[in-house]
């Protein structure tokens, strides 16, 4: 059901090796790991540290600093609902409540069937068509309850 691969240190080391020669390779490596495994597990940190010749603390500090990097994989699909000012001005808070109720999760949570993770996002740059959302990498704007319901259905399918 998951779109991600199960964690193996061998696969992780291969991914790290593909990026480790870049300058400032930490973020590219973390993005690449998350792309494959759906998260950056704690076990990845010593591998990155040794490949980049930096301390494990530095890697840990970096992983935990950025909102994007997860410790555990989320649901099969990720729905990001924008809650920044422009979307607040256009009814985004009401949509947040609606989405939470419909999916039965809090913001940041994953549905029991592991299909959808609901996350807040602070600006998708679609403020001309607020409120906005992103399902994986597909963008949606000018949302109202009706359009959000369609989107939730799509996310759960």
């Amino acid at each position: 059901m998951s779109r991600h691969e199960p964690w193996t240190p061998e696969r992780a080391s291969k991914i790290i090796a593909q990026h480790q020669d870049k300058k400032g390779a930490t973020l590219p490596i973390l993005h690449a790991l998350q792309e494959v495994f759906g998260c950056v597990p704690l076990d990845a940190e010593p591998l990155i540290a040794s490949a980049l010749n930096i301390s494990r603390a530095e890697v840990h500090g970096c992983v935990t600093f950025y909102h994007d990097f997860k410790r555990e994989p989320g649901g099969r699909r990720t729905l990001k609902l924008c809650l920044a000012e422009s979307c607040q001005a256009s009814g985004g808070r009401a949509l947040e409540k609606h989405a939470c109720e419909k999916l039965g999760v809090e913001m940041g949570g994953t549905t029991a069937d592991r299909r959808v993770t609901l996350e807040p996002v602070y600006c998708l740059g679609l403020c001309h068509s607020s409120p906005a959302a992103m399902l994986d990498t597909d963008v949606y704007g000018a949302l109202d309850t009706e359009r959000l319901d369609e989107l939730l259905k799509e996310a759960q399918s």
Partner: protein
Amino acid sequence: MTRIYVSRDSGALCVGAEAVAKTLREEAKARGLDVEIIRTGARGMYWLEPLIEVETDQGRVGYGPVKASKVGDLINSGMLEGKPHETCIGVVDEFPWFKNQTRLTFANCGIIDPRSIEDYRAHGGYEGLKKAIEAGPKDIVEEVLTSGLRGRGGAGFPTGIKWRTVAETPPQQKYIVCNADEGDSGTFADRMVMEGDPFELIEGMTIAGIAVGATYGYIYLRSEYPHAFETLKIAIEEARKAGFLGDNIMGSGYAYDMEVRLGAGAYVCGEETSLLDSLEGKRGEVRAKPPLPAHVGLFGQPTIINNVLSLAAVPLIMAKGGEFYRDFGMGKSRGTMPIQLAGNIKHGGLYETAFGITLGELVDEIGGGTYSGRPVRAVQVGGPLGAYFPREKFDTPFDYEAFTAADGLIGHGGIVVFDDTVDMAQQARFAMEFCAVESCGKCTPCRIGSARGVELMDKIMADEDRASNLTILEDLCDTMKWGSLCALGGFTPYPVLSALTHFPEDFGATKKRLEAAE
């Protein structure tokens, strides 16, 4: 053959442009029509998206907003001949909202195919680079100084002075960094350039590289922009193939190459020094200045770090001369500003115009008031760190100095409109909360101040010892403003205090109390 244009900008995709393009293609095939569908960037008139443009003898005739299910009907009623229809806006270039703008940076946006370097060149692309190569490094810097261009990221620092500082450092590895971490709510101009005219940015960065002797550049792009990422990667590859990036640009002997790097959801990385740390692979913590990035920047080397819009303005400045650009604008704010109309607004979009237009004209006339139809109560200008303005301040002209004088900032040029249902105390609380979540943690006023600010707002809203807590809030804002290391902690007081000053009733305070406090 008829040419039809449909945008692939995220702002068009988010309201269904992909389905419209697909249906057009299918209908054309089924009816055996001889059409070519070209995917462009956005014109910036987002309330009309999905917008279909059809090439006619008069120019491109626009139809929008179009639903995919209505495409067949539109073809039946003569869309391909540019015939009238209820969704027809006439020739797009003559449409008043578009025509009345001064499009310099966005001249090609929505018109060309952003993935085609030939199309870019056919519309004047790489003329600036050609002139820059002829002029040489010293004269490029002079031209940018003459233009009066100021950093479009928000701080408004003169771009030419930044460039001169880097140019004057001894020859060594230098870098060009483009700040594409456009995190401010209400802004999307950078995204529009990157998705709609990416070669303009690439050309601007290449000119910057030649000007200061930098041979490599990075675009630091926020991860929330997957479509821009895709377009930039394609455009960089195209530029490389065509000899506009690499060891010998246009046969000039100059070398410059570049890549795109993705951020990871940290708002503070839009601050230039934290962006540099992030690019180096570290936590995105703010650096103390000095040293300036121009002296000790990326990987410790001299670095130009500019916003997307600043760099994208450069090709035109080189092609037409610094004086041409300088002749637009007012006072010390020269050239044009792409203003972004957002939030609860009828005509949401991008409006590029010379500095000097008033806030009221932008919101009421160009923006058409609120989308909800209710009265406008407040507008926030310049993102989450910008001040809230009430209607009484709508005569403020859009100009760096005028906004500073009105206790605000134009920032990256975003305007978010709120109607009369907004609770300004909630907005002030949100500003503190946002700062608390996004603080890099390096300096105490920002890290601790914002957390205390949220608590204070909760007490004020619950009417707990309100009068003295309001005094503490003002005190706290003063500490954050003057004691923070960067604009995140330093500017969070703008939305908080402007909300309190202009809308005291939402805080359970009276105007009189504040006047007495002054």
